[in-house]
Every structure is written in C-alpha cells, then in structure tokens.
C-alpha cells in the first residue's frame, strides 16, 4: 500500500501534506505535554518496532505469505497519537532509505497508514473493548477487528486517492497524467484484496499479538489502558453501549458495501456525483474536477456491459459512508480524549505510566 512517487499529482500530494500536518503537530504537542521524557525512547523504539512488524511474513492458506502493517497494533499498545508518530517515522525511514513509498507521496502514505489506520482501528478497538477486562478474549477479538477495519479504511483511502487522479488530471487529448484507473476500478480492486486477504492477515496478527501478551506479558497491555492503570473498572452507561454497538454495526455494514459492486445492477440511488462532494472535503483543491466527474464515469470499465449507469451511486454511497464513518470515529475519539483530559486536569494528576513493570 506504500504509494510511490509518480502516481499522485503534486497537487494531491500538497493537499495530503496539509491534511497530515495538523495530526503531526497535535501528536508532537501531546507527546510533549501529556507525556514524560521517558516516552521519547519508547516512541523511537516503537517506530523501530513498526518498521520491523512490516517485515514479519505471515503464512496464509494458499502456501504463500503476506505481511501486516501493524499500525492498529501500535495504537492498541501505545495509543493512537503515539502510533501517528511511530508510523510516520517508520514510513519516513522506508521512503528515504529503502525506496518503499515516495517522498512527495509521503504525506499521502502517512494519512492512510499513520493517521486513518490507527485512529479507525483504535476507535473500533475501544468501542468493543471498553468494559472488557485485561485478559478477556473480547480484547483480542476487538484488536483483531480493529486491525481489519483499520487496514480496510486505509486501503479505501488509498483507492480514493488513486481513483481521483484520472478524473482530475488529464492532458488535452485525454491522456491520464497520473494513476490511470478511476474510482470504479481502484475501489473494487483494492477493497477485494484487502477485505478478503490483507485485512484478515492484519486482524489475525493483531489479535494474535494481543493474545500472546495476555498470556505472557500483561504489563505491556497496561501501557495505554487507563482503567487498568487506575485500578478501577469503568461502568459505562447503557445508552453509551447502544451507541457503541450501533457504530460497530455501521462499520461492518459500510465495509461490506463494496461487495455489492461485484453484483451488477443491484445498485440503487439517484443523486450520484453529489455524494462524492464528501470526498472533496479532503481534496477540495480542484473544483473543476467535479465537472468532469459525471461524464467520466460513463467511460468506465463496465460501460459497454450495460450497468455503468448504476455504477456511480454505489461508489458515491460507499465513499460517503466511509468518509462519514471515519468522521464519526474521529469525533468519538476526540470527545473521548477531551473528556479524559478534563477529568485528568480536575484530578490534577500528570502521572501516566504508573504500573509499567519491565
């Protein structure tokens, strides 16, 4: 999923730097303010760990292997903001030193794998795991689902970035200047591979590591677990539980929507291109691309086969569903954090890593 230079237009790369910068700044500030100086080596070595997790080959049933990205794992263990810095660092080393992922596309890769992936995965993890005890199987399951969701959100973001290129950037004779495939091709291709293989591998590895730590090294699971740290079991209100499960259900449904793309003709929906306005809220640089949009899809892969007219509503729906979902996840995360910060400020405690026994 590491996007090399050359696939994305410089305009898109610039927008991605603008999107990523506030996350980097916030993550840096939080690490500085909230955290004691001991966190610096922890994050540095966490980044080294991120880099190495991507090297672990996981055997999969057809006799080949696949590797995981590990961002959700880091988010579960160290918290999502630490994951932003650790993953960005690992991605920068990969881009600069090993030619894995581009330098201009670095911010795009960071938005996909160092911001969206840990936050989406961690939101799911927290939603499912909140009242669970440290050793409950539900925690491992939550981490697994978090890894699965996180990787798929990240893959979808990459597919959207690729897919927008041909509709936004073409030369006068219609030659695509950057990545040539449109949304109707990139989203099904990326999502099929990630929904059925890569996401499962990510989920299995994330759940497996958490299971191992539950068995072998529980203090590590407490690094980022407030409730365990304070020695109190949180009692969530019933209303909150309902809301949580609703979001989990929504996440599942949203992730399953691309499956509908396999079955032609089942699409339903009318006001297609307007839905995609939502994606432009990431990429609002070139409004003229919007004009191209409707016309563009009629030239899509399936044009001759009779269901091109029904195609874009699915994509539009999917995109808006996912963007909405990520927005909800972020809002939930931010409000959790704000509430916690307020509580913490009231309690007047700034001690964060109590209970870390090496």
């Amino acid at each position, binding site marked *: 999923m590491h996007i090399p230079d050359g696939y994305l237009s*410089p305009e898109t790369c610039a927008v991605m730097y603008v999107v990523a910068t506030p996350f980097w700044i916030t993550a840096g500030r939080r690490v500085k303010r909230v955290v004691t100086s001991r966190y610096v080596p922890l994050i540095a070595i966490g980044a080294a760990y991120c880099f190495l*997790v991507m090297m672990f080959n996981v055997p*999969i049933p057809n006799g080949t292997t696949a590797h995981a990205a590990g961002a959700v794992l880091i988010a579960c263990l160290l918290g999502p903001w630490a994951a932003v810095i650790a993953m960005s660092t690992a991605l920068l080393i990969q881009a600069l030193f090993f030619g894995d992922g581009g330098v201009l596309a670095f911010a795009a890769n960071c938005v996909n794998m160092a911001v969206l992936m840990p936050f989406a995965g961690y939101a799911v993890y927290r939603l499912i795991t909140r009242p669970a005890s440290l050793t409950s199987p539900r925690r491992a399951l939550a981490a697994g689902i978090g890894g699965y969701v996180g990787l798929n959100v990240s893959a979808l973001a990459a597919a959207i970035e690729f897919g927008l290129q041909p509709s936004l950037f073409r030369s006068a004779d219609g030659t695509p200047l950057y990545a040539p495939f449109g949304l109707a091709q990139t989203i099904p291709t990326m999502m099929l591979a990630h929904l059925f293989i890569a996401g499962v591998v990510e989920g299995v590895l994330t759940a497996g590591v958490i299971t*191992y730590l539950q068995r072998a090294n529980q203090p590590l699971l407490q690094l980022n677990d407030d409730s365990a740290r304070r020695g109190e079991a949180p009692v969530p209100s019933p209303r909150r539980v309902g809301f949580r499960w609703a979001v989990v259900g929504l996440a599942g449904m949203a992730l399953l929507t691309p499956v509908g793309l396999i079955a032609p003709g089942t699409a339903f929906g009318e006001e297609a291109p307007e839905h995609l306005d939502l994606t432009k809220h990431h990429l609002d640089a070139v409004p003229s691309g919007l004009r191209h949009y409707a016309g563009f899809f009629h030239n899509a892969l399936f044009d001759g086969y009779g269901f091109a007219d029904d195609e874009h509503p699915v994509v539009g729906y999917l995109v808006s569903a996912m963007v909405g979902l990520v927005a909800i996840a972020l809002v939930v995360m931010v409000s959790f954090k704000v509430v916690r910060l307020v509580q913490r400020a009231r309690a007047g405690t700034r001690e964060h890593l109590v209970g870390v026994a090496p």
Partner: protein
Amino acid sequence: VSDTRTPEWLLTPEAGLCPCGRIGTRRRRSFVDKTISGVSNVMRQVLRADDVAARDGVLQRIDPRIKLVSVAGALIAVALVHHAVVMVVLYAAAVTLAALSAIPVWFFVKRVWLFIPIFTGIVVLPATLNVITDGEIVIPLGTWFGHEIGVTRQGLHMAALIVTRVAVSVSLVVLLTLTTSWTRLLASLRSLFVPRLFILVLGMTYRYVFHLLDAVDEMHVARKARTVSATANNAAGRRFVAASAGALFGKSQALAEEVHQAMTSRGWNGDARTMNTMRLVPRDVTFLAVCVVACSITLVVDRGLGK
C-alpha cells in the same frame, strides 16, 4: 569495486538462504526463510549505502541540506512534467550524476528497474487498453461482445509517462540517500523545519532498528534450526509469528526503558540538542543554482512541447 569498506562476501546473498532453484528440489520458501532473507536484505542495502556515501564523488561533496532541498524541488518538477521524452532526458541526467558520484551505474540502474516492472508495469499495462483509457486504437486486439478492444495511443503515452516518472522519482531519492550518510541527512532535516523531537525520534529509531533486526533474525533462525519437517503448518506458523511479534514488543519496551534510564543518568532532561556544524560553501550555492536552472529549463521545455 575494491574501495568498499565492507567485504564483498558480506554483500552477496548466500546460496543457503534461498533453497528454491539453487540446491535440491524446488519448493516454495517458507515464511521463516522469507523473513530471514528480508532481514539480510535490509542489512545488505544499508551496508552498501554506507559504503557509497563514504566514497569521493560529486554529490558526496555537496551539503546535505542543499541536496535535500534540490531533490525535493526536482521531485516536484518531475511530477509536473507531462512528456515521456523529457523524462528520458531527466533519467539520463540522473544516471550521469550517479556515475559522477562513484555509484556503480549498473547497480543504480538495477536498483530502480528491478522494482518498477513489479509495482508499475503490471499495474499500468491493463490501463493502456481502450476499456480504461479511451482514445484512438493503435494495436487492435479483437472484439469483445461487439466492442472493439485494443491498445490506445493515449494509453501508451500514459504508460510511458508514468513508468518513466516513477523511475526518475525513485532514482532521485536513491541518489540522495546513497550519497548521504544517515546522520548527516537527519541533521539536514532540521533545516526543513522538522521539529527537534521528530529528529531525535528518527535518529533513535534508526539506531535501534538494527538492534531489533538482530532479535528478529535470531528468533527466525532459531525457528528454522528447530524445524525438521518440510510440510508447512500454517496455524502453528501464524501462532509463532504473532508470538514473536509480541515478544519483540516486550523486548522493545524493555530496551526503551533501559535506554531511558541510560539517557537520564547522562543528564537527559527532555530537551533535544543537535551539533550543528554544517556550513555552506560556494560549491553548494553553485550546485543549488544549477539545480534551479535545470528544473526551470525542464519545465519550460516541457510546456513548450505542448499540453
């Protein structure tokens, strides 16, 4: 080349690492073998990069900050170029620079072109068909349910443009990283307004990657040494991978704790300092000027060739 500090035998992959095709019957490499060869591959790349950065060449003599800024600018210029012909000229320029910087040309070309067919060629090839890229068909490939299928002129132009653009971009980054030692590159990131905290984290990460890489290698070699049967047990394999990733996290955390104690005992108070001894000389300014002029000429020529 004889002026490497790393002995040549360290840089050539061992036959024993790859049982497929070389010795005995051909079989699929297990996940253990793949991870071990991945680890040794990273080590080999780093050793080679260190060797090249220590040689005496044109790019090695330039201030790393200037190199960083020039590469960033050149990448943007490359991303804005719309003609494959211009890209080919730029690629020739990159290869010339590599030759002037004591980088073995064959190694430089191989490093870029081994990677491109896999990630770019396969992805871009289907897009040359008129089902993806509409346009005038130059190589008809028959019909499909009454629709004509073929390779279009626009598709070929697009494929050439993207493949060459990726090649030039990767070459530029490889030029930068092969001719600059990591510590100097890190120090130069300061000049691009990257906060100290990030630089500190980056530097420490790079330092400890190799330490942890050793741990990964040891775990996998131990597993390989204990494995007798050739038949794969995927479930056990996955358990092993998850457990070793978990154990590695434990090791990382313990290491972080020790490093923190060591830093504290040496007077670390959470503030990062860098020893900034880099100074610009006229050669650096000239190089930057040449880069700016070259990028501008490239863009002017590219626009001159038409939209």
